[in-house]
């Protein structure tokens, strides 16, 4: 048994230093959201104060995440074990730069959604629990980003899944229930697969702490089924992340709920799957990732291309955006396929950008519906004359989503292409570039149809119909204006000043590529 002895000094993990107050920032977001969500449930009949509870709580969470990010950047990875049960026995919350960056981006888009919903969600739907569900969904998402325990990750998946079921059926229309059904069944399937795989992994290594698993897997005998478990995790999380070919649930369900719900889902849900893939494939079982590298690359390219081709074929804006979400997931997976530090940094950057950008685009689709009265490309047109501001904002977001400079989508794509070329996977780089071109065509079609042409399908440019439409200037409600300006502002800022985010994602990627620092942070010593 000498060969199986852990290579690090367990005694060091037994030294209990006083926990600094700053470490509590790890659990502050989840605790705040639970308290806020529970309060909102108790006060659900007071529909007027619901938005204030939601916006207030999520605002505090944004603040807490900013502080946590600063803490992690200054002091390295932060880890706290619940109930003073020492690792690997207690459930660890472990935050590295990647997790906190995602948590921060998630809380920002949730805040934007909470503000947007204050103007668009009806009283009856507030009573039905929109804000509690939003808070508990964010609670699940944040918990998943910050936990360091693989079973706890599953628990947070359940929390966010159950809240998302509540949100997707808000409104109770027939086609919503139809979408919710597909969403629920396929996601439950993925979660169950995740649980089963975790059971297998636990049977093999006897621990659930991710750092501990990472340490034990290299010591397993040769015939241990590590590769099989890696493949099962890839399938389970790929389903969650909407990777080809297990992504059919997304286009089937994302266009049915309220637009603000779609915005939250597009920003958060698939990214949790992506996060889990990055974390598990790189930190927990790096050998599995190397073995699956070509397969991940193929899946990534297929996801990107089928996503963007699907978007090109759609006439409903919401369906089109759903396919663009999928295409973005492929881009993130491309970095995982290559697995070098610059590629992984590109993946993290792209995922964070995608959280902000996809939510912004869905909120924008809501605004377009407000102005033009439709979600269909056939029925929209001439909106430029009604609101040049919205047209400009749309153009920024569309450029960002296509990865065109100078917005936030450009830099991660540069890193991903660079990484893929350096890693000898030129075909993945080609896939990213072709997708970029196709996305540019898609967004061109989007913008020209909705804003540039004179009116809906069948109207010739410059005819009387359009001139009349220009007479009434559009009034944009303040609940739409604030979230859209926050998100668009961030996207422009990251595009022009990428250094800040770049530094964060490089720190995050360094941890993923060399998990020793992660293990060290949890156990307090070098492995």
């Amino acid at each position, binding site marked *: 048994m000498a060969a199986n002895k852990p290579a690090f000094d367990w005694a060091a993990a037994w030294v209990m230093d006083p926990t600094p107050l700053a470490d509590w920032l790890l*659990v502050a977001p989840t*605790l705040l959201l639970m*308290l806020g969500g*529970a309060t909102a449930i108790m006060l659900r009949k007071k529909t007027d104060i619901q938005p204030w509870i939601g916006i207030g709580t999520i605002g505090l969470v944004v603040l807490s995440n900013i502080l946590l990010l600063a803490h992690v950047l200054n002091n390295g990875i932060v880890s706290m074990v*619940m*109930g*003073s049960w020492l690792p690997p026995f207690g459930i660890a919350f472990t935050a590295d730069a990647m997790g906190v960056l995602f948590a921060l981006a998630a809380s920002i888009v949730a805040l934007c959604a909470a503000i947007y919903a204050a103007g668009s969600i009806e009283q009856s739907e507030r009573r039905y629990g929109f804000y509690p569900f939003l808070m508990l969904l964010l609670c699940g998402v944040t918990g998943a980003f910050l936990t360091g325990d693989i079973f706890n990750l599953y628990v947070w998946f359940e929390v966010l899944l159950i809240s998302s079921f509540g949100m997707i059926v808000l409104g109770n229309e027939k086609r919503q229930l139809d979408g919710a059904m597909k969403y629920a069944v396929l996601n439950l399937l993925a979660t169950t697969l995740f649980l089963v795989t975790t059971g297998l992994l636990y049977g093999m290594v006897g621990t659930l702490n991710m750092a501990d698993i990472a340490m034990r897997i290299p010591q397993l005998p040769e015939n241990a089924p590590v590769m099989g478990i890696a493949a099962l995790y890839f399938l389970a999380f790929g389903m969650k992340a909407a990777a080809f070919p297990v992504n059919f649930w997304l286009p089937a369900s994302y266009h049915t709920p309220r637009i603000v719900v779609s915005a939250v889902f597009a920003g958060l849900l698939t990214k949790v799957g992506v996060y889990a893939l990055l974390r598990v494939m790189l930190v927990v079982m790096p050998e599995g990732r190397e073995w699956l590298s070509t397969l991940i690359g193929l899946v990534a390219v297929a996801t990107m291309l089928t996503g963007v081709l699907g978007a090109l074929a759609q006439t409903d804006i919401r369906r089109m955006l759903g396919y663009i979400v999928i295409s973005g997931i492929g881009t993130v997976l491309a970095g995982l396929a290559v697995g070098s530090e610059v590629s992984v940094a590109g993946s993290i950057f792209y995922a964070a950008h995608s959280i902000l950008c996809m939510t912004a685009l869905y909120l924008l689709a809501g605004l377009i519906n407000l102005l033009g009265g439709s979600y269909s490309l056939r029925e929209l047109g001439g909106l430029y004359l009604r609101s040049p501001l919205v047209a400009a904002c749309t153009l920024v977001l569309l450029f960002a989503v296509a990865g065109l400079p100078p917005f936030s989508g450009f830099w991660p794509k540069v890193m991903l292409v660079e990484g893929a070329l350096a890693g000898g996977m030129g075909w993945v780089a080609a896939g990213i570039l072709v997708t970029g071109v196709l996305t540019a065509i898609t967004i061109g079609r989007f913008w020209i149809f909705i804003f540039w042409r004179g009116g809906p399908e069948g109207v010739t440019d410059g005819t009387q119909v359009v001139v009349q439409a220009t007479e009434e200037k559009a009034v944009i409600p303040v609940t739409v204006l604030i979230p859209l300006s926050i998100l668009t502002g961030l996207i422009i800022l990251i595009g022009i000043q990428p250094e800040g985010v770049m530094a964060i994602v490089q720190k995050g990627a360094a941890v993923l590529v060399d998990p020793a620092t992660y293990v060290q942070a949890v156990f307090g010593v070098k492995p």
Partner: protein
Amino acid sequence: MNTVIFRTIAPYLSALMILFSIFVLLRGHNEPGGGFIGGLIAVSAFAIYGIACGVAAVRRAITFHPLSIAAAGLVLSALSVMPSIFLAQPAMTSQWLQIHVFGTPVDLSTPMFFDIGVYLVVVGAITSIALALEEREQK
């Protein structure tokens, strides 16, 4: 199910079951039991009372809306993990307080309040489902 015997016995049976559920809840710290199982026993009590005397009677008896009870439980559980913040210990670290009631030592602890929170969440959430189902049946 609406026999006289059942309707007569149901309130007593429910009261007994709720008492038992609290016993199971408090026993849970060191022995089999706890908030989850205790909560389920309490829900069965409400369900029996509902089948015998109608959903309206149950709603009157528990005063608060089941969902509010669940939310209150969540608040209690979330608060119970926090006291260790003042002692520079990680979250959820248990804190103990021994008080003497007429000479009998009684141990109060944060895990107990956490468990009571779990109990309330289970009672609230599952009662609300059970009552909704019973209501549907009685229509």
